[in-house]
């Protein structure tokens, strides 16, 4: 088991308010880790600390056993890639150009030779090969999200962070993205996915980390973490847990609707 990124006792305080408190988590190669939790729980903050975007107020984040802020931007870009929630492009670059930008960290390295295959594979995996000559600015929200995913995949880093990659996507593409995440993990990549859909997280993740109120409430296999008492407590909503192929499916308990 290879740990690519390790957070130990991470806390983030912004303007005197504790956003994250004493979070310790290991990101493991070959595994899909889902970060779930209610709105404002601190998922995005945790992701930005793990990805090196922001500094933790306390605790340490290490990549390959070294402090994350001791790396240069370029070194870090070769170790981890991040799919952000917002993906606007200021000028009308084509889809092909945008995805090729994912290869930028590998310029002037021997891996430059992989550019073509990396780009082609990424386009295929994100199902955007047919869009390559289109201008990014003319795409729909879901198409933009998939093209951005392709850019992140083309970067080919040992750790991949995906912040709500399914938010703008239709049902089929949601499943496609999660299948891609699994396939990526199967090649030895450490994949971290922030998700809102608990059933989706349960269906595809190897481990689920449940964040609430800035703290890590539970981490473990989907069956261990996604239980009715835990979800009801954290989300403040009564739920019933069903099961599909040994994985939990979460449904809210709904009052009888008026006819």
């Amino acid at each position, binding site marked *: 088991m290879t740990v690519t990124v390790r957070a130990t006792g991470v806390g983030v305080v912004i303007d005197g308010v504790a956003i994250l408190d004493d979070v310790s988590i290991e990101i493991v190669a070959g595994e899909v880790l889902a970060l779930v939790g209610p709105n404002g729980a601190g998922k995005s903050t945790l992701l930005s600390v793990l990805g090196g975007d922001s500094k933790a107020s306390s605790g340490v984040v290490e990549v390959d056993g070294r402090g994350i802020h001791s790396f240069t*931007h370029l070194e870090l*870009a070769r170790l981890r890639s991040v799919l952000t929630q917002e993906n606007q*492009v200021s*000028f009308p670059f084509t889809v092909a*150009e945008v995805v090729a*930008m994912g290869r930028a960290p590998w310029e002037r390295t021997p891996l430059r030779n992989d550019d073509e295959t990396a780009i082609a594979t990424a386009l295929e995996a994100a199902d955007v090969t047919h869009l390559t000559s289109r201008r990014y600015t003319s795409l729909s929200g879901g198409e933009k999200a998939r093209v951005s995913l392709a850019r992140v995949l083309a970067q080919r880093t040992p750790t991949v962070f995906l912040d709500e990659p399914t938010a703008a996507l239709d049902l089929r593409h949601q499943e496609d993205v999660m299948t891609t995440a699994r396939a990526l993990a199967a090649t030895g990549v450490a994949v971290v996915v922030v998700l809102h859909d608990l059933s989706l997280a349960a269906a595809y993740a190897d481990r689920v980390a449940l964040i609430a109120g800035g703290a890590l409430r539970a981490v473990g296999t989907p069956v261990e973490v996604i239980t009715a008492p835990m979800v009801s407590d954290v989300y403040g909503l009564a739920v019933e847990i069903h099961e599909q192929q040994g994985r939990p499916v979460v449904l809210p308990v709904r009052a009888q609707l008026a006819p």
Partner: protein
Amino acid sequence: MSRTLRGLALSTGLAVALVVAVVASSMVGQLPIAPTEVVGTLLRALGISNGWQPTDDLVEATLWVVRFPRVVMALAVGAALAVAGAVMQAIFGNPLAEPGVVGVSSGAALGASAAIVFGVTALGSWSIALFAFAGGLLATLLVYFVSRANGRTEVVTLLLTGIAINAFAGAGLAFLLFVGDTASREQVVFWQLGSLNGSLWNEVLIVAVITVAGLVAAFLLAPRYDLLALGERNARHLGVNVEALRVGSIVLVALLTGVAVAFCGIIAFVGLVVPHLIRMIIGPGHRYLIVASAVGGGALLTFADLLARTLVGGADLPIGMLTSLIGGPFFFYLLYRQRKRSGGWA
């Protein structure tokens, strides 16, 4: 037509435009000179003896003392302004950012005018350029830090900041006009209108050196500007040191604009029109954009200067007035299009 093909067509077009602009601008004036004589003397300067070279000393003198410095100045200033525009648009992530529009040019003009009125000559012919650079840098920093929020620049904030800076610089210039003596007043007025009249070789050298250096820097940074189009966070995730790029680019814009303004005054809209047209033809990739903008800006300003010298017989129109006459309506068009596309002031 593919972008490569269009790129090829554009390069050819720009090269032809550049040569025609240089030759035409050298021919026309109080003393008409044949195009063959222009080419002849240029070839001789390169050490190629030929049958076209002028025999009349007056023609020779007119070309080398009056017209050539002015043409080279137009090329350098046009290139400097167009590249400054392209770089500014890249770091603001906004195609409407331009040194003239957002007040960098007037900041630089204020600095240059202060140097004239208060008679600062400590650094010889570089003093005015240095003051212009300082004024331009201050204005760029101000615009940058005021108009950006959460890594983005809203069009409306950008333009409002430009209005504020232009108003302040305008007042500063008015004050300098008020306290200055007659001679310095005339010079300050010249700055406000912009002109390439009376360009001297030593000035041309300063502008050319800084323009070439700035162009090389912008070209080397071009791949990073491409990544910056993805937004600051994404650029950082791809290995770009965004903070360093930003600061370096601000200095670059101030340098290019400052040196242009120091010797030729405010020439607005070149940095807006040229990169925009080129982006429309070959797309937004910054490597080609910066090189093509430099050539296109040089050619455009040489043509504009030719018009400024010849439109009204016997008079030398201020070139800044001319570029604003053309650039103003173009700016309107861009605003209109952006509003229509994004449905508001996004």
